[in-house]
């Protein structure tokens, strides 16, 4: 596991440390996702039907804050950007996958992260969404087997 390269570049962390950091990062993400109201499909539906733009506001604020932090710390010499994971570009899969994902979002009114926090607060529709999501992952893997 080398997901923490920018934090620790000279040594590998013990697996238990990596697990703990992952747990804390996930905890923070889940906490604020829920706090922002994203654990409720009605809030999420608001962005598609124009009655609540919290999703767009929070989402782009989060991106800009992370971006400023990342590039600010890089400029200050704290972060080594060459060690930061930048998602690879697969243009057509990402374009077509994004369209399909957008369809799924509007049909189910959750995306995976928001569905997880909605599950955590007892939303049955979110549990249905996640059930479908895991079934879909299995289906995709069976339909398009990849060695790894």
């Amino acid at each position, binding site marked *: 596991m080398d997901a923490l390269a920018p934090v620790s570049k000279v040594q590998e962390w013990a697996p238990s440390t990596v697990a703990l950091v992952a747990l804390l990062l996930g905890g923070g993400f889940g906490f604020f*996702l829920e706090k922002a109201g994203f654990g409720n499909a009605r809030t999420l539906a608001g962005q598609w039907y124009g009655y609540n733009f919290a999703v767009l506001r929070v989402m782009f604020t989060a991106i800009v804050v992370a971006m400023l932090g990342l590039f600010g710390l890089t400029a200050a010499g704290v972060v080594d950007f060459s060690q930061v994971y930048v998602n690879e570009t697969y243009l057509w899969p990402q374009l077509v996958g994004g369209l*399909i994902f*957008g369809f799924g979002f509007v049909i189910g009114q959750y995306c995976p992260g928001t569905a997880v926090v909605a599950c955590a607060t007892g939303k049955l529709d979110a549990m249905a969404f996640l059930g479908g999501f895991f079934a879909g992952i299995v289906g*995709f893997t069976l339909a398009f087997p990849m060695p790894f």
Partner: protein
Amino acid sequence: MPEVVRDFFVQAGPLVGVRPVVDAHDADVFSLGRVSREVEVAGNSQESRFGRIGREYKRITFQKGALKDHPDVEWVTPGHALFEAGQGHARKPFAHPLDDFLVYMFVGVIIGGFVSGAMDRRVALGTIKGPHTSNAKRILLAIGGGVVSAFGARLARGCTSGLALTGGATLAVGSWVFMLAVFAGGYGLAYFLRKEWL
């Protein structure tokens, strides 16, 4: 030792798309060619520890001695970026699939979401739906939406969190393409499902 490295590399290499072919004139030299995409990705993720992996290795050897006769040949040995990328990747399927950074993070998201919901008294069993639709229809659409999202996320190799948000902040091209496509797809379909929510 070099023989062990060679045998491992020649036998395990094809598992990750790396196929060294022994040279007709010198049994210590192998031609390799373009490195497979998966090994290149694995190599890039280990760059801080083993240096930059090449996209292509024309000729390689596992015997240091062979460098005398073939100075143009790349000497591959433990610690070499190509070797480490290949062996790390070949070993991956044997690790426990649930022992992964993302699994712990997933558990963290559940805990964090629950804590926030509990603090504001939002934890309650129930179905969230629009005012003019039934519970059954909402649940069926949620399942269907989950299946469709999963196909999209697997195809694009990421979802709103890992690809759009995280990658968007690093200004990854694919992340922004994905994000705009999600909104295009969403707003394109939203009209036809408006009765579910309005």
